[in-house]
């Protein structure tokens, strides 16, 4: 310490805070490690552009952004759960169940055109499933890891029994408008919607009481509790929000695919957690946030897409993706904070 006792890092902190235009949105944008995922993303893009002529094309952009959209929407709410220091393993199963119920329900009423009402329907249904997770975890004082692992199985089981193993083809005019049409050239509407939702959730994360409490609970649950913050209630809220975005993702996924099958959402379990963590939100909680999730989604999707174009088989892709997640946690982990127990 110097004479005035000013902490060593205070000077650069001021400089950094002034430099970053985004610092008004969230102090965490000035955190160390925010830009590492961006570098990784650019390197991946560079490698795949050089390795495959098909990678850097408009066609491929439209295809990948469509794929990325579902993943981004599904990861938005889950980002808050992870930021809070909990985890939601049931996002993929939630997507499958909401997608199945929506489509099976619409099949029952063929004469009704729900229009955009399918979106709030999916959101409410997903939110209920999230409330189920959150309430059990908080009231029963069970780690969210266990609760959502269980509900992953429950939701999947219900959905598969409705589907009876079959794929239901389904289409609505609104689905086409939601997913495939392009209001901005080369950018499917589904990707546009995902980006808009992402911006809304950044705002929620940085400027609302819910966003702040999620950060506080993740940073120090006991400290937050002693300061009078309603920790339990906000934990349940986070799971509800995670369920809501999963429900929305389900509607978007169904509209893009025009079908619901047993495998819907199965890749989302790993991919949502991968995207959030690779983006830079700590599994220990309290570091990062939903603003980082976009870049994580971009990395995961580019990796998928690039490996596909290079002809890497799906099994090896699983191996690579798993290693990427573990590597991201290794790099980002603050080892001073001790073991993670979910």
């Amino acid at each position: 310490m110097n004479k005035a006792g000013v902490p060593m890092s205070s000077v650069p902190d001021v400089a950094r805070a002034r430099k970053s235009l985004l610092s008004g949105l969230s102090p965490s944008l000035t955190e160390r490690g925010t830009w590492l995922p961006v570098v990784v993303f650019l390197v991946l893009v560079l490698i795949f552009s050089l390795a495959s002529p098909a990678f850097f094309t408009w066609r491929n952009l439209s295809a990948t952004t469509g794929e990325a959209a579902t993943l981004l929407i599904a990861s938005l709410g889950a980002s808050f759960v992870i930021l809070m220091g909990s985890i939601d393993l049931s996002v993929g199963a939630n997507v499958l169940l909401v997608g199945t119920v929506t489509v099976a329900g619409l099949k029952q009423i063929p004469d009704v055109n729900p229009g955009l009402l399918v979106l709030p329907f999916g959101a409410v249904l997903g939110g209920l499933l999230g409330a189920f997770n959150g309430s059990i975890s908080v009231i029963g004082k069970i780690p969210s890891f266990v609760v959502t692992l269980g509900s992953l199985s429950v939701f999947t089981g219900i959905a598969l029994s409705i589907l009876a193993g079959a794929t239901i083809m389904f289409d609505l005019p609104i689905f086409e408008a939601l997913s495939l049409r392009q209001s901005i050239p080369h950018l499917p509407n589904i990707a546009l919607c995902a980006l808009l939702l992402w911006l809304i959730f950044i705002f929620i994360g940085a400027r609302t009481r819910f966003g702040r409490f999620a950060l506080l609970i993740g940073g120090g649950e006991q400290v937050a509790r002693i300061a009078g913050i309603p920790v339990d209630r906000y934990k349940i809220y986070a799971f509800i929000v995670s369920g809501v975005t999963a429900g929305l993702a389900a509607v978007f996924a169904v509209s893009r695919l025009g079908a619901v099958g047993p495998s819907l959402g199965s890749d989302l379990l790993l991919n949502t957690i991968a995207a959030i963590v690779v983006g830079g939100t700590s599994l220990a909680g309290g570091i990062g946030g939903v603003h980082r999730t976009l870049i994580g989604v971009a990395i995961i999707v580019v990796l998928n897409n690039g490996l596909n174009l290079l002809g890497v088989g799906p099994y090896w892709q699983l191996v690579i993706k798993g290693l990427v997640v573990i590597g991201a946690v290794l790099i980002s982990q603050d080892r001073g904070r001790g073991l993670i127990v979910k």
Partner: protein
Amino acid sequence: MEFGAERRSDELFRAERVSKSYGHIQILHDVSLVVPPRSIVGLVGENGAGKTTLFNILTGLTRPDAGAMHYRGEPYSPRAYNEAFALGISRVFQEQALVLNVPVYENLVLSQESRFTKFGQLIDRAAMISVAERIIDDAGLDIDVRRNAGAYDFSKRQAIEIARACMAPRHLMGIADPLVLLDEPTSALDRQDERTFIELLARMRQHASFVFVSHRLTEVRELCDSILVMKDGRLSAPLDPAAADEKVLHGLMVGRERADDYYHVDRQIDVDGRPIVCSVRDLSGPEFTNVSFDLRRGEVLGIGGLLDSGKSALGKAIVGVHPPLGGSVALDQAPARKPNIRNFVRNGLGYVPAERLVEGIIPSLSLAINLSLPSADHFSPYSLWRLQKERAAAAAAIRKFRIRSGSPLAPLQNLSGGNQQKVVLARWLQRDLKALVLDNPTRGVDAGAKEEIYQHIRLLTEQGVGIILITDELTELIGMANRILIMQRGRIVAELPGPREAKPSEHDLIPYMLPSAA
């Protein structure tokens, strides 16, 4: 003191002109010290003076930029803690480093298990236990090494750690006279345990040398052969404890003399006949029973007692951290609808917990965020969070409380303990308070920040806030309180008045705290 080039037989360790800087900030300036064998060297200084950096260099956690160290006559420049430990230099931290769910004997041979293995894997438990028992016997402790470390209380566990640091080098590695660095070992001990600690150290000095860091100047003077004062990265010449009284030490540490009226007793308010802001009736919990008292506007009510007296649990119950088993707490004569911390905070109660790092602050988050922690009602009245307002409040608090931080956005972990504690206090002072419960508000805080905290407490009382001050420090208790309650085993056993002109002495209080007086 002269530092001759040749080794003198009366020194175990010597550091010469050690310097360290981070960036352009110089942390240590030409620090030189000598530790004679079997001696206790006291090291005092404010938080942030450079004591921790010096310890880090001595144990290989940090490399110095310049300077030389000698240990047992050999040049010494450890690159990691393991290297220092292998040579017999170890460190006992304020936060304890025992594994609670394994037996004491395993803790005593921790990291040295390979000495007890056969064929690489089989562990010779009997040999471990016998070495562990020798360590405990040498330290003169009454501890069963087969029991889990967690079965012993804080002070016993600390004794185990000190025994390990002093004796394990001899029994495990054949190193006699090791050097043990004690980093604020007593700051969490109450008076009785502090005595036990002092006796233990007096015994252990026959086997080891110590560098002893503490904020408690009385015990430093009692224990140490010489005292070094560190201020702004510079070390004083060794002082004779007999000659350097607390006022002198304080002056060297802070750079100014300690005020005669450290606790601002002249600002203590007469509260007779003033309205009651908080009344506690028959409050009971797992660690205390039937506690009743009234707190008046502007009063400082001190609560003292040993660690197991239940006073900290009482503090938590008053603010509703844990629901009480029985009884009630009323603010301004209105009993709380639901006695949980949220309702109490909303109605004007505040709480500064004892465990700053676990309960008080979120070190990874910014000063501004830590400051607004209990004030969502203020910064987010309608769900949106007012960041500009929050930042302005933080900037104002930095000025008002003289918090040494470059920016409201800087993470709190960059600040010293005293400055962190000011943030915890400042957090409540931006609210409209009726009463504030403080649990050891100056624990682990340096002398300068301490004085400022006392001033702010006085300022609060002048504004009519009632203060409940729970503390292990008797001088603080006596100096600050209008009235002192002494707790023993969960019950209030004495109430002593503490008027400005007739403060009780420590000797008046201690008999009520000890079980024999019950």
